[in-house]
Structures are given as structure tokens and as C-alpha cells.
């Protein structure tokens, strides 16, 4: 029976137990009371004192940020000491007066400073000014008693071997946002990588802050260190970038807009990654002023954009390499296959022109690549159809990010029937296949995508993720980044060798479009490309060489060398550089020469 009344004997036992229980509870409560008596009455004075100035505080010990080295272990980013001015409101006598006084000594924006002070927790130091000069530091230290509540702390800022050469790779630092403070374990005023390697490898570079438990005196000044947890410095990052080569490219690209990228086919390491115009990383040290930031962000030449991975351009004739590869692999053509070029091709009611007004005549694949005949590829395009072209392009990395360890990479675009239906609700026209065949129309690629595409062809068909970081340290030991295979494409050795020899002819033969990229004793294979910015008839009225810069075509040159034993891929893209045979290929020639000097390639 679940519910029952206890008999008298049991009830008495129950009551006895209950009373005993009350006694036990009372005893426990008594212990608690005794403890409160001790804390609040006997030790009152001690705790009152501790609480009054909140004398026991935790102070962060900032960890040193990790260094960044280039591939030859040259330190390209290190840390430099920097003096910052903080104020603790609770330690100051009158915060408004203090800020006024300070503004007469240093260039302090009082209203911005006030806002920062208001945003702090009690006894949390507010960062007022970054980068005090030595004069200011010594003045403030001499007159420290006139400024109760201030604190001068050394922290570190980045110090660059060169502020402009590798801005887009390394990226700038900036102050953390509120979200980082609330959820990311940062303190207000901390610096954090905002772009480039500094951003992607923030967690490795950042290190772990230590802490110090201190007792302070009435003025908030350090009295005694009670305990300390040391900080752990950030890891060192070694880039695959070559600083010397990068500097050389920087000089070459002065006054030009565009991108250069060199990719090592065997290691998938990016040795050179340059985007012009560049910006000065030093303008972010110790912090960037609003005016300067506005100037950078609103600059029409867009110096903040990393054109290698963020710039989207039609690849132009560089794309013909993919067309040739697809045609050969699919068995639609052989190298001996000829088409007839009379300067244009008529399809439907449209006339598609070749760049050579009077035509190439009867032409085979090799000559079509060497002389960049458009009509040949129009025909080939129609033979392949958009579906095959699109599937090859996608397999070779077009229309998707390469996955390089840099932020803000753009995927570009490669069109297909499905895409057009979705984007325009229209079906695909054969005419669009024709212009796609010479790398125009809807296609948007980044220079890095072209480099990865070339690398994939010449490494035997493996699409790898490129990287700018070679290795990083972990507990003092260097750990190399693993290669990441994304996809494989079947490419026969015969077809690869044919493309190589056709491309080296494009540079080295009499009629080759890329003759400006010739380098003494080094066999360079390459393909020029010209991507139209506006349609041909708009620029036809101008004489050659007098076309306004904005309307000039983008100039491409994608190359591989040494052509007899492919090791490096170099892609150059010059915005509004005119035809690819001109500016891009001559820059390519200069870079290859420099790489020979630096010992990357041996002259025969």
C-alpha cells in the first residue's frame, strides 16, 4: 500500500529523525554564519581596504606577435616598440580636466578620447593615444604627478622591411571591433590582422597573452606583483614569397596597374604575388587616420584591391590554350587539323572578326596558337560546344576560388547553359560559344586562376590549391603546409608536350605574338592575351597607340618556363596595357631574367 498512515511507534521515530535533521541543518547554517562573521566583522578592515581601490587587479601581458619571413628566411615583418597612453578613469581626479590637460601636450582628440573612456569597465584602462614620441613619453614621465590616472605602456607594432613591396600578401593591422572584445578574447585597443596573411593566420601569429596579478597603491600605481602567468609569443610564419623578386616586380610595376604571379609547379608555392598599385603598410602604423583611410578606400585606382586574387578580367586569348587542350583531349582535332581564316567568320547574321584583318589563310593548330588566330578557335569552339568547354574550364579551376591562404579571393565566373538560364532566364546562343572560345564574353578570371590552370596542365593534370605560406612554427619547430589536391584532369603527355612546344614557338618563332618575353638561353613558353574593355568599334576611330588609357585593352601574358622542363608558371596582367604581346610579355621577360639572376633557373 503506497499511501498509509504511520503507526504511532513509527511516527515517533519519524518525528525524532525530523528533529535531528533540523539540528543538523542548523549546524550547517551556523558554520555559514561563523564564516560570514569572520569575513564581514573580523576581516572587514582588510577586505574594505582591498575593495576601496580595488587594489588587486589583473593586468594583461601582451604576447609578442609572430614574425613573418620570406622564403629565404629574411625577416620581412618584425615588431617594434610603441608607446601608448592609457587612462584609468577611477584613478584620475577629474577625467575632463585630465583630458584637457593631455590635449595640450599631445595631439589628442578629446571627444573621441572621452568616448573611449566612457566605454570602459570600471578600472579598465582606456587607450587614448597610440605611438607617443620619445619626447612626449619623457615629458609625461617627468610630470606624471600632474596627470593622475595616466599609464604609459609599451606595446609593439609591426615594423616592415618595406612598406609597399608585399602589402597585399601580408596585409595591414587594425584595431579590434566590439565583437572581437566580447567574443574573441581581445581587449579593447588590441590590434588584429585585418587583411592578408596577418588576417588568415591571426590565430597563429597572435600568441597567448599572459597575465599578472598585481596590488596597486592609492594612485593606481603598481605596488607589488602577486603572481604572474607568462605570455606565449605568436608563431613565426614563413612565406613562400621571395622578397627580392617581389621588390623587383614592385619597381617594374611603378605607375602600372595590374598583377603578377609566379607559381612553382612542383610545390604549388607562390613565389611572387604582386598587385599594383600598392599601398604603404606603414600608413597603418601606429594607426591610420580617418582621412588617410578615406583617401585609400576611395582611390579610383583601388590600391587596396589585391588584383591577383580579387581582380576579375576576361582571359582573352590565353584561354585558347584551354580550347586547344580540350580539342586534343576529346579527339575533336589533331595538331594537324586545319581551318581556313580569311579575317573573319560569319555565323548566322553576325560576323566574328580575327585580329588579323586579312586573315591567316589555311592554318593548323600550332600556328593558330603561335599567331593567336581567332577564327581557328571560333571553329574549334563550335566543334566542341559550350558544354564540353565549360566542363573543361570548371575542372581546370575557372569560376571557383583557388583556395589560396589569402582573404577576399574572388571566384570569377565561367558561363554554362545552366548558369545562363539561371542568371538571365535565356537559353545559350551558339554565338556566345564563339566569343567564349577566345576568352571573351561572360568569362571572368583572376590572374591566380590562370596561373593555377597553367600549373595544372604542366604538372600532369593535378589541380592543387596554391599557397603563399611555406611553413609556420609550432613549439619552435617549422611545420610545412601540406599540399591540397582539389581535382585531377586527364592530360596526355603528348598533348602536354605539343602545347609546350607551341607555346615556346609563340615566344621564340618569327611570327610569335610573345616575342617580347624572350630570355637569353632560357626557353620560355607563353601565350599572350588581350581582353577587350570596350567593343572594337568604339576604339577603331583612334589611331594605334593613341587610344585613351581607360579604353585600352587589358594585356595578359601567361607563361611557363623552362619550356623543356616546366618548373614555374608566371602570369602577368596589365590593366589597360594594350595588346598582350606588348606590355605584359616584356614584363614577363624581365621577371624571368631576374629569376635567372636569383638562381631559380639555370641558363644553358
Amino acid at each position, binding site marked *: *500500500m*503506497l499511501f498509509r498512515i504511520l503507526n504511532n511507534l513509527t511516527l515517533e521515530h*519519524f518525528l525524532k529523525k*525530523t528533529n535531528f535533521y533540523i539540528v543538523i541543518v542548523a549546524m550547517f547554517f551556523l558554520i555559514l554564519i561563523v564564516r*560570514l562573521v569572520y569575513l*564581514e566583522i573580523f576581516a572587514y578592515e582588510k577586505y574594505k581596504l582591498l575593495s*576601496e581601490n580595488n587594489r588587486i587587479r589583473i593586468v594583461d601581458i601582451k604576447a609578442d606577435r609572430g614574425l613573418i619571413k620570406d622564403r629565404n628566411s629574411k625577416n620581412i615583418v618584425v615588431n617594434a616598440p610603441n608607446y601608448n597612453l592609457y587612462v584609468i578613469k577611477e584613478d584620475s581626479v577629474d577625467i575632463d580636466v585630465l583630458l584637457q590637460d593631455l590635449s595640450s601636450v599631445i595631439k589628442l582628440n578629446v571627444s573621441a578620447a572621452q568616448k573611449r573612456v566612457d566605454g570602459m569597465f570600471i578600472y579598465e584602462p582606456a587607450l587614448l593615444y597610440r605611438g607617443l614620441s620619445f619626447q612626449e613619453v619623457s615629458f609625461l614621465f617627468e610630470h606624471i604627478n600632474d596627470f593622475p590616472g595616466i599609464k604609459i605602456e609599451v606595446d609593439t607594432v609591426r615594423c616592415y622591411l618595406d612598406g609597399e613591396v608585399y602589402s597585399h600578401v601580408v596585409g595591414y593591422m587594425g584595431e579590434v571591433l566590439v565583437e572581437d572584445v566580447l567574443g574573441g578574447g581581445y581587449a579593447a585597443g588590441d590590434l588584429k590582422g585585418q587583411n592578408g596573411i596577418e588576417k588568415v593566420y591571426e590565430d597563429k601569429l597572435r600568441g597567448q597573452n599572459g597575465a599578472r596579478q598585481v596590488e596597486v597603491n592609492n594612485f593606481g600605481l603598481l605596488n607589488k606583483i*602577486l603572481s604572474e*602567468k607568462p605570455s606565449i609569443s605568436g608563431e613565426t610564419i614563413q612565406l613562400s614569397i621571395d622578397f627580392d623578386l617581389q621588390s623587383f616586380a614592385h619597381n617594374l610595376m611603378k605607375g602600372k596597374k595590374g598583377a603578377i604571379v609566379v607559381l612553382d609547379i612542383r610545390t604549388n608555392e607562390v613565389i611572387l604575388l604582386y598587385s599594383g598599385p600598392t599601398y604603404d603598410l606603414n600608413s597603418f602604423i601606429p594607426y591610420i587616420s580617418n582621412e588617410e583611410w578615406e583617401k585609400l578606400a576611395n582611390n579610383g585606382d583601388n590600391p587596396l584591391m589585391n588584383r591577383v586574387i580579387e581582380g576579375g578580367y576576361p582571359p582573352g586569348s590565353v584561354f585558347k590554350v584551354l580550347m586547344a587542350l580540350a580539342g586534343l583531349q576529346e579527339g575533336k582535332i589533331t595538331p594537324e587539323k586545319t581551318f581556313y581564316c580569311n579575317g573573319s567568320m560569319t555565323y548566322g547574321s553576325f560576323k566574328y572578326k580575327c585580329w588579323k584583318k586579312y586573315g591567316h589563310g589555311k592554318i593548323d593548330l600550332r600556328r593558330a596558337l603561335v599567331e593567336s588566330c581567332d577564327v581557328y578557335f571560333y571553329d574549334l569552339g563550335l566543334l566542341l560546344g559550350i558544354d564540353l568547354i565549360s566542363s573543361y574550364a570548371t575542372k581546370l579551376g575557372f569560376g571557383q576560388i583557388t583556395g589560396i591562404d589569402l582573404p577576399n579571393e574572388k571566384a570569377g565566373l565561367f558561363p554554362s547553359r545552366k548558369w545562363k538560364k539561371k542568371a538571365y532566364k535565356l537559353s545559350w546562343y551558339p554565338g556566345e560559344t564563339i566569343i567564349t572560345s577566345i576568352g571573351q564574353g561572360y568569362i571572368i578570371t583572376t590572374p591566380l586562376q590562370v596561373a593555377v590552370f597553367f600549373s595544372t596542365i604542366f604538372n600532369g593534370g593535378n589541380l592543387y590549391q596554391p599557397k603563399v605560406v611555406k611553413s609556420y612554427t609550432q613549439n619552435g619547430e617549422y611545420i610545412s603546409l601540406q599540399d591540397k589536391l582539389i581535382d585531377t584532369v586527364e592530360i596526355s603527355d603528348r598533348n602536354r608536350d605539343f602545347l609546350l612546344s607551341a607555346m615556346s614557338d609563340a615566344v621564340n618563332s618569327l611570327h610569335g605574338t610573345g616575342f617580347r618575353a624572350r630570355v637569353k638561353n632560357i626557353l620560355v613558353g607563353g601565350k599572350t592575351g588581350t581582353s577587350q574593355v570596350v567593343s572594337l568599334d568604339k576604339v577603331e576611330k583612334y589611331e594605334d597607340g593613341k587610344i585613351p588609357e581607360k579604353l585600352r585593352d587589358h594585356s595578359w601574358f601567361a607563361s611557363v618556363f623552362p619550356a623543356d622542363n616546366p618548373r614555374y608558371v608566371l602570369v602577368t596582367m596589365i590593366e589597360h596595357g594594350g595588346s598582350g604581346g606588348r606590355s605584359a610579355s616584356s614584363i614577363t621577360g624581365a621577371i624571368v631574367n631576374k629569376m635567372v639572376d636569383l638562381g631559380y633557373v639555370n641558363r644553358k
Partner: protein
Amino acid sequence: MLIGNKYNFRHFDITLFILTILLMCTGVFVIYSASYNHKTGVSEYYYMKQIYWIIAGLFTFLFFSLLNYKRLVNFAYLFYLLGVILLLFVLIKGQIGMGAQRWINIADFRLQPSEFFKIAWILVIAVQFSDFDCNKLGFVQILKKSSVLVIPFILIFLQPDLGTATIFLATWAIALLFRGIKKITFILLLVISLIAVPSIWFQLKDYQKDRVLTFLNPEKDPFGAGYHIIQSKIAIGSGGFFGKGFLSGTQSHLNFLPEKHTDFVFSVLNEEFGFFGGMLLILLFFTLLIRILQIASIAREITGQMICIAVASICFFQFFVNAAMTVGMMPVVGIPMPFISYGGSSLITFTSMLGIVNSIALNRFKNPGDL
């Protein structure tokens, strides 16, 4: 006699009701102060939410008062089963909060099944120990009775919520001690638990180990949990006899005390109202416990009596552990103070339990079998 008189409001336990309200109101004051922002001059929304919960809590108190507790006792194991299912559910699908899975989100509410399971738990305890007599329990009997403890304990332990798991274990242990254990068995159990402790230790998450170690030696980690204990002690000690005054606590308004509206309410109370305030709260709780135990004595039906013992135990254990933690006598475990700490699930659970106790008082003159 009063048998047949379905709801006799003369026996409504007004003392219990008033004590509940007093405790909950104290809670609102402390929560208001704990989440008060001196910069803006307003308190965060917590106290308003707590007021809504109190209103809901009063309704649950009345609801359970009017419901004959025997109906609940009859379904004790059903509630137990439902509770276990909820605990399983939260373990599998629950929201991850503070490194532990403790909540289920329903609409905008975050329900904590381990809180509600406490209601089922006191009912199960009552049924298990309704065989109360003068004989003491032997080892086998204890083992048999303890089988119901295993599943919920493991489920909550895995969340991992060590604090709440101990609550279930502790109330069980208190009920067991109340029931009476043979001397030899007691010694045997003691030895077993001494062996069990190390094996549980290896199951603990690092942060839990840290907390226990920190308690044993606060100097070990003066930056994390140890720092909180130090700050909590400073807050309480600097309160003195009468405290610093409402909203005038300095320590508790700093960023030093974590979860000050849940785990560290006792520190805030002591800093602002001093020893006087702390004593008042201790007395309030003591009176509440005595009142519950008195109802246990005057009730004439054993499941009702055992429910009272269980409810008193859970209130006592949570209050004591929470307070002892803030004064540095126990490790920092996330056990809220009943009625005072912020949190809807906890408040509703405790008002329900006191409602059941009130129902025991209301129905105490009925025949055992009458519903």
C-alpha cells in the same frame, strides 16, 4: 471531520506562501543590483524577466497547492520516465551553452530539463522511501533503491553538469540517511565512495578539474576561478555589518564576478546589505526549512512526509552549497541559489515543489487513500 471537504483553505499554509514570496522578492532586488549598470543608470532586463517568472511561479505554486499531491505520487514513475527522455533529448540535441548541453530552446525560452527533473525526483524519492519504518536498511536494499538514481545521474553528469548531478546524488543521500542505514553498511558505502572518487575524477572535464583544484588551492589559478573566489570574498568581507547600501556595491559591479546574477547573488547581497542582509537571508531559508519539516511532522501520510523531507533537502543543499561557494568554503560549481538566483526554470521548479508541500498541508486530514 474534514474528510470530503475537497479544498479546505483553512489549511492553506500561509507561512510557507509568505516565505516563498519574501525570498523571491529578495531575489529581484539582488538581481536588479547585480545587473545594474552605473554608466547608464539602468539595470539590464534580467530583473524584469525574473518578475515575470515570479508571477508565473506564484501561479504554479497555487496550481500545485490545489492539486492533490497523491495524484502526482501515483504518476511518479511516469514523470521520471518523461524526465529521462527530456534529459536524453537535451544531451543529443540541446543547445551548447557554457561548454555544456543543458538547455532546450522552445520558442524564446531556454528550458533546463535537469531543473524540472527535480520535481520528478522528489516524487520518486517519496515513493522509494514510503516503506519508512524503524528498521535500518542493509546493503542490498540500498542497492535496489539506488537503481533509479543511476540513469538521471549519468545523463546529467554527461551534459556535463557536475553541480546539478551532485544535487540529485545529495538529496538521495540525505533521504537515505533519514531513512536509516545499518552501521556496517554505512561503513561499507563510505569505503566504496572513497574508491569511486578517483574514478569519477578521471571522467571530469578539464575545467571541472580546474575548479576543484582551484578550490583546494586558490593560489594555483589566480587568473581564473581562483580570482573569482578572491573577488567574491573581497565583496562579502568589504560589506561589513550593514553593507555598502543598495546599488552601492563596488566589487560586484566590476567585471570581476562572473554570472553575478546567477551564481554569485549571495556575494552581491552581502556586499550591499552586509552581515545583516546575509543573516536575514540565512534566517529566511532556515525558517523555510523548518516550516517544510514541520509540515512533514503534521502530515499523516508517509509519501507526503517523505516529499517534505526531499524538498527540504534539495532547498537546503542548493542554498548551502551556493552560499558556501561564494564565501570560499566550497569549489565554484554552477549551482544556483533557490528563489534568489536569476533563472526561470529554477524558479518554476522550486515554486512547484513548495506548491506540492502546501498541497500536503492542505490534504493532511484526508484518509490516506482519498484523492
